[in-house]
């Protein structure tokens, strides 16, 4: 394994070491990639029972004050004032060209209080951006220092209740602050029912220990987190969405409601409206390779005539799909389901078909 000397270390690293984790670098952190069970078992266990992920590399911010809703509605294509108490919303920071700086989840935890969850790789840029936007409004932006755990899978509600944290009142995409300095939401990155729980580092060993004492719970590393989210059709920022892609091309306009587009208060609104008006040149789609060979990120695609058709942005093997799965961007005229495309890998021409996302059905608890 590469030298991990300059990387940030998780507060629960000792637990991961004790569990036999293999570590790797991700977004400036030394992260558990797999445990001895292996990516296949970790993945399948999450879909069947409960997978425990340490996602403390991700960043939480509290935005609070009389101007908090307006600041967030400027920073994101979001009607923050219209969020119901405890409602969470998937949204983005966009630049002036409607490029996606990061994707986020914003949860209203009080009349003037919101929790923002952002990606590790963008944490510092996000903080600068959010603070710069919020400077024009009457609110504060406070980065939180938390251990952040995701518990994903059909058994998670019961596991948490037995560990003393009853979150059964939350439905999918709702969150709350169940204890002082804790934050929990019913959300995740696997397509399964599940929760993400942020808590003070001083309380984290005891809480993780309670979860791990339940035989339905297994540590799951970043490798399976990636295969789970890919099967679920969820984007990884930096790969499937970047500052060079916009929500229209990415097929994420469902996250930008029409009244928000029309009000056009958010950074990037003008550029996004122009892209929508002329139609995106490329679309993000699911891609299903024929056969068993994975088609991975970075591979270019051609159409039946051999003309450039697009590129794969995420690809690998889907343990639940039992087959290789991928997603990427293709020319808008090739985005229809079933369209046959080709990838060239080591001299072999691998056929792929445009496939609906997700590859495995979402099993969210929508209440």
């Amino acid at each position, binding site marked *: 394994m590469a030298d991990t000397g300059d990387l940030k270390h998780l507060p629960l690293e000792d637990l991961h070491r004790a569990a036999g984790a293999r570590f790797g670098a991700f977004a400036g952190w030394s992260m558990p*990639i*797999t445990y001895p069970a*292996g*990516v*296949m078992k970790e*993945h399948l266990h999450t879909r069947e029972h409960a997978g425990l992920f340490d996602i403390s590399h991700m960043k939480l911010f509290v935005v609070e004050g009389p101007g908090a809703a307006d600041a967030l509605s400027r920073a994101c294509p979001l009607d923050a004032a219209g969020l119901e108490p405890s409602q969470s919303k998937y949204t983005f920071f966009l630049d002036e060209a409607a490029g996606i700086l990061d994707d986020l989840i914003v949860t209203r935890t009080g009349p003037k209080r919101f929790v923002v969850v952002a990606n590790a790789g963008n944490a510092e840029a996000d903080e600068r951006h959010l603070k710069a936007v919020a400077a024009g409004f009457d609110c504060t932006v406070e980065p939180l220092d938390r251990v952040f755990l995701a518990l994903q899978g059909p058994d998670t509600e019961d596991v948490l209740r037995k560990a003393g944290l009853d979150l059964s009142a939350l439905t999918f995409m709702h969150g709350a602050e169940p204890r002082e300095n804790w934050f929990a939401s019913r959300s995740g990155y696997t397509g399964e029912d599940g929760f993400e729980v942020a808590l003070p580092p001083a309380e984290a060993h005891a809480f993780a220990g309670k979860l791990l004492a339940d035989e339905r719970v297994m540590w799951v590393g970043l*490798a*399976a987190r*990636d*295969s789970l989210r890919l099967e679920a059709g969820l984007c990884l920022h930096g790969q499937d969405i970047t500052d060079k892609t916009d929500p229209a091309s990415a097929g994420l306009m469902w996250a930008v409601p029409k009244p928000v587009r029309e009000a056009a208060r958010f950074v990037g609104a003008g550029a996004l409206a122009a892209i929508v008006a002329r139609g995106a040149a490329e679309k993000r789609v699911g891609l299903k390779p024929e056969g*068993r*060979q*994975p088609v*991975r990120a970075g591979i270019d695609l051609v159409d039946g005539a051999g003309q450039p058709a697009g590129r794969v942005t995420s690809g*690998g*093997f889907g*343990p639940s799909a039992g087959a*290789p799965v991928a997603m990427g961007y293709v020319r808008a005229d090739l985005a229809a389901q079933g369209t046959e495309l080709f990838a060239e890998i*080591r001299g072999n021409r691998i056929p792929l078909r445009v496939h609906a996302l997700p590859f495995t059905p979402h099993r969210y608890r929508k209440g």
Partner: protein
Amino acid sequence: MARTYFTEDHEWLRVEGGEATVGITDYAQEQLGDLVFVELPEIGRAVAKGDAIVVVESVKAASDVYAPVDGEVTAVNDALSSDPALVNSSATGEGWLWKMKLSDESQLSGLMDEAAYKALIG
């Protein structure tokens, strides 16, 4: 009498009667994780030591396997096309990758025995 050799690239060769059966070591399969695809060479292909002739793909990544000596591919393990995980469950047995006829047996003297390989992986 078969003899087994190891390479620094974490392959094993079991040599008997001028032919070697080649695979990756248990240590290598553990490092790679669950394999989902193995691309095998064509039978009859002439290979030189160091040629990348097999690709093993795990859930996360693709890795090359190199010819440990010069020779010609005489057989490949077709069972891996439907069950690549055999490499994980039995790296030095049912998960063998290919067989090759050796063209220069003196190259074997540059390889490790099991004791030296075990010392290498620590």
